[in-house]
């Protein structure tokens, strides 16, 4: 009688990806019109970006675009984690007018102040 030995199916090799996110490094400036926020998310393109607004909180999530595998890893400093960070917004910000762009892994958010709260001169009538 012949015995057949079936090869065990190989367990799927999963790329090690930590569940937690890394916080991107940010610069925030106040400009005459509102605020500008720059967040460093190398490896993320427009498709991997997800920005959500909830109440007065803005959440930025950036998922790294897949990179080709290039054999054996000799040296590693880069993180494989995706990015996530939450910011509380100044109530003066006009949330309808927030705009975002990403260029070479640098996200720039423009957060304009609403017209009502912008400083303005009041003309004095006689």
């Amino acid at each position, binding site marked *: 009688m012949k015995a057949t030995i079936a090869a065990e199916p190989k367990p799927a090799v999963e790329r090690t990806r930590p569940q937690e996110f890394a916080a991107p490094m940010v610069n925030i400036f*106040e*400009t005459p019109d509102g605020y500008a926020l720059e967040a460093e998310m*190398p490896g993320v393109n427009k498709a991997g970006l997800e920005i959500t607004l909830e109440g007065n909180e803005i959440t930025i999530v950036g998922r790294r675009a897949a990179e080709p595998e290039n054999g*054996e*890893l000799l040296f590693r400093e880069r993180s494989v984690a995706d990015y996530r960070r939450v910011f509380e917004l100044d109530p003066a910000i006009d949330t309808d007018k927030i705009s975002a762009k990403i260029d070479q892994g640098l996200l720039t958010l423009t957060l304009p102040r609403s017209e009502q709260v912008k400083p303005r001169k009041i003309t004095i009538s006689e």
Partner: protein
Amino acid sequence: MNLIRYQRPDLAWAGFGRLSSLRDELDRLFESPWTELARTPQLLSGWTPALDVHEDKDSFVVRAELPGMKREEIDVSLHDGALSISGERQAVKKHEEAEVYRTERFFGKFLRTVTLPAPVAAEKVKAQYQNGVLTVTLPKTEAAKPKQIDVNVN
């Protein structure tokens, strides 16, 4: 050489939230003999972009995280089997006079040098900058590639 990436002291708080990665950094130190590969010169500019080195049978691939730069600001050179990636990142001019709420990003000059463990064909080196990641592909010289030798046993 630096074992842990240099952080500018006055920005130590910016890195505080990433304390958990310190353990990872230490783990890496002990698991890889290749830490010798990348040498970080003691520059006072404070910016040391993170990089990875991969090797397959034909080439080495070095990837460095350089978000928010322009192609012309990045310099890639090969000298005596060592790859150097250098450049200078400029702060956005229009924000210089704005009121600053948070500065965690690094600006200024950087230089990273990677000593490659095998000879590479300098004329075939390619560099690509996409999504803020610089990828340098360095094909090995024919002599450095692993060879299959058939042995006939009579």
